[in-house]
């Protein structure tokens, strides 16, 4: 069983969190924090397994993670999962995200955490691996998105127009966009 799936960046900011066992919000944040501390101090050339998370799991559980550019993908699993299998699964997850977002980067996850959740839901269900075939996952996702688009149809047009306008360089938008933040955003773009 997979107990939790966490994605956070190099600074420990959560980008996606899925817990297959209930923890309240405070606990969730603590777990993310602890996991980040455990994972972030490890070099890139050490192994991807980690024991000793105190808040989540216990002796039977392991953290299996991969580090991609600015993001950590951490799976907390028990002994019924194959360690190398989970590493492959993380790879499938990231590759699927890459296909969905076309060259995925941290910003995609920041603004489209819901889409990332949808990908994850096709991959893992209730802590158990559902599908590992990427083509199959993509096909399922596309069909669902098609449904969503068909549904939106004409009625969503005004909303879309508004959001397009909002995304344009309105004065308000300019004020919102604090300039010092831009370099940061550009930095994030490098995946």
């Amino acid at each position: 069983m997979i107990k939790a799936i966490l994605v956070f960046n190099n600074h420990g900011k959560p980008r996606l969190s899925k817990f297959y066992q209930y923890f309240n919000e405070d606990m969730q944040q603590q777990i993310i924090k602890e996991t980040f501390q455990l994972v972030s101090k490890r070099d890139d050339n050490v192994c991807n397994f980690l024991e000793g998370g105190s808040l989540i799991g216990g002796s039977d559980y392991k953290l299996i993670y991969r580090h991609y550019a600015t993001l950590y993908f951490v799976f907390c699993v028990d002994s019924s999962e194959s360690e190398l299998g989970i590493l492959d699964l993380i790879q499938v997850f990231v590759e699927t995200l890459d296909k969905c977002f076309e060259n995925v980067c941290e910003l995609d996850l920041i603004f489209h955490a819901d889409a990332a959740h949808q990908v994850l839901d096709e991959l893992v269900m209730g802590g158990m691996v559902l599908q590992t075939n990427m083509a199959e996952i993509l096909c399922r996702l596309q069909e669902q998105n098609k449904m969503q688009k068909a549904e939106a149809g004409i009625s969503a047009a005004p909303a879309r127009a508004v959001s397009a306008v909002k995304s344009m360089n309105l004065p308000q938008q300019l004020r919102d966009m604090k300039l010092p933040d831009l370099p940061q955003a550009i930095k994030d773009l490098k995946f």
Partner: protein
Amino acid sequence: MALKKVKGNFERMFDKNLTDLVRGIRNNKDNEAKYIAQCMEEIKIELRQDNIAVKANAVAKLTYLQMLGYDISWAIFNIIEVMSSNKFTCKRVGYLAASQSFHADSELLMLTTNMIRKDLNAQNQYEAGLALSGLSCFISHDLARDLANDIMTLMSSTKPYLRMKAVLMMYKVFLRYPEALRPAFPKLKEKLEDPDPGVQSAAVNVVCELARKNPKNYLSLAPIFFKLMTTSTNNWMLIKIIKLFGALTPLEPRLGKKLIEPLTNLIHSTSAMSLLYECINTVIAVLISISSGMPGHAASVQLCVQKLRILIEDSDQNLKYLGLLAMSRILKSHPKSVQAHKDLVSACLDDKDESIRLRALGLLYGMVSKKNLMEIVKKLMSHMERAEGTLYRDELLTRMIEICSQNNYQHVVDFEWYITVLAELTEMETSAKHGCIIAAQLTEVGARVADVRPFAARECGALCARVAAAPPGPASREVLYAAAYVLSEYCEEEEVMLNAVSPLLACAGVGGGYMRARAVCVHAALKLCARLLRARRDRNMRDQDIELIRECLAGLRPLLCSEDMEVQERAHNATALLTLVLRELSPGDAVLPAEEPPSATGLLVEHEQSNGLENADDEETLNQNAKEDLIEELAQLFDGELKPVAPKAQKKVPMPPDLNLDQWLSRDRWSSESSSSEGEGEGEEGGPMFPAPHDARPTAQFTPEELDMLREARRQEQANNPHYLKDDSPRSYQQDDIPIAEIALEVPLQIHTKRSDKYLMSRESSSKKKKEKRTTKKRKAKKQDKHSTDSESEEWERRPAVCAGGELPEGAAPSDDEPPPPHDDPHHALDLDLDRPLREDELLTSRLQQYPSPGVGLLDKKKDKPAKKSKNAENDTPDKPVKKKKDKKSKQRKQSATESIKNEKTEDILLIDGVFKSNGEQLKEDVVENTELTVDEGKTLKTEKHKKKKESKNKDQTISSKKRKSTKKDKHESKTGYEEALGISTPSKEVV
């Protein structure tokens, strides 16, 4: 009006959407909390809107905030609203929010039952899939019970996507609602051979999870899995199957033998590392289960170890880690074959990767022997010095202690070396936690190894001196606790005793944070003092004795007003005792409190003494005797050896047959035991008349006789009680002298070089000498006689006696027969016999019949209009299940109308018993309700209405819950069939 609405909607378009929210948060890094609080307000306003799209937008934003750690449980109702929308887009948002924030104990979950059922049965497979995914995250017992049937139906859906999800979902249902396992199992088994590989894989996954906790119930599936293993090419599934076999083989060795061959083939053929690794793991499990006595058994072990060696030597750290992990499993059953790769393991100890070092450490446990223990510990000590992470340090220390102490110090030959190691570990001043572990070891070695006690006492003396000299670190603070005890308990050398008293008292005064050892130090100082006085009482050393006591009293003085209550108390005790002795030894001493009026005897003695040089000799000796007497008595306070107690000794103490813990400890008890008590009649008298006041409290008035009796009884009890100091040792003055160890003190210990190393060196050098055909005695021989053995082989064998186990109450045998402590693992409930044929009442259909969907939501009011019209609705509770059952009962009662009401009542109970055997509490409640209603003859309901209602209810249920694949056409037949089935399932009815 319409215009207003349109306008409202239009305004809403300018609401923040999720992207705006994220952007806003990023732009308000400095006052994020304030910004989010503001957004929360907006969200709350949006949630009040009628437009479902607006609500969905708000819920989407809430989901994001939930990830950031904000509690959104207040919005549960709104989330349910969004989930119940007809639009897939909104549903997706709603279910995502639900899966992130709901949990099994969420309130209002019952509102979702019918909505989820509707979604599960939706035409579009993605809607059902969405519901399944969401439900898997928050399914509760009630939801599992009510939806089990729908999910089971989905397991035979025509769409593989849904079958796959439904199969996985069933595992969650089983966890929450174990009763579903048996009825659903045949179908699950069927899915193991589903044409779709995804469904197959999901079924394997579920069975693996189930079998992991209760493997014995799934042995019958082994042939199917065996077939799958030999035919399938899906690595993901193969891994699961092979893992499952790993869990099954310990229960069925024959299976293991069959597995070895295909697994070996897989090991040779596969290119996938993950599969290879799992194969090795399962082979190991097989090897453990069959242990030996199989041809080619050694070859398999060899193959595994070889392959693992390749993994460990790989440059990929992951493989290295897993190789070590698997190696540790082999270690348990085949330590020999692992020991051959010792070089590899010690190389891994130096790896830069902490995970790998930890794994290698775990392996060391099985690799130590008497010969290499010192070397390995030396290496670990050097690691200990440079280790930076606390986790690694912790692990190092516990491992080190573990490998040394394993199997009752099996591998430790030289305990002086071990004590030195402990002392050095203390000097590293790591943490208080480590201090506790070291302290425990110190006491244990002291208690178990008698030979090493003098040395341990010396080391502890050194430690106390060190603590007294400089402020102690966290570890020393804890170790001092044990050190003070060991020192005072086992010290035999006068000089060590003498030198330890004042450091101990200084330690008791050490401030700077809590230190539990302080009070122990005071106690230890007094103990040492008393023992020292007794040890040298034969030699006329009065001056030194007085000096010693003065020194002690001086040391105690600052402690008399210590801020630690315990220290203060003990310091007062010690001062009082020592003053007493001092007064005997040197009356009128300056240290004695002057203002205190001397006691009568003291005065007398003093006068006689000061007056008389002419005093007779016998007077003198009498006086001498009195002093010795006092010293002896003081020392006797600390006599007796503490022995190790077995861990379960307390539990094994047999309960005295006459012990009644519920009885009051009142005077009646004592008076009833002796016939000649006067209070007896009184007690008897009050008993029957006024039971309450009599029982309430024992009165505290005792006659002198009774008091004597009580005292005697108490004395008896204490004599039999191991926790009281026994007074059976005769307090004679002629008690045997304590043997005084006349041991020349050792060469002073060098601190700067590693002290423990010298044992290793001496061992090496001695073994070299031995090889040169020597007969020179080892260096250790001059210190203690215990190691002066002749041959080398004997030297490894000969080691100080270590007393094993511990004391147990008489008649109790050490055993591990205690059942494991119960824990709330949901898998316990899933330990069911799956091969037994299903009983009729176990079918999920009948269960649903008993439990109509509870609390049908506010959102789906249409479906829920059952009992409102019935006559009894007014006087009934809103508890629907009860109402329904009542209806059913009433119908049945109609059939047996001739019987009396009383008979009916019992019948009902039996009937219920028969039908709902497996229902605990709810059943009981229902029975109560039901019988009450039966008595209420005015409301016995025999109206047609109820019958109809029941029928319609039946209809509903049969549609959704038919296990047999009944189409909607034969609804009526199936309904009647069900009625019959109900009759069959209630045999108790016929009986009565």
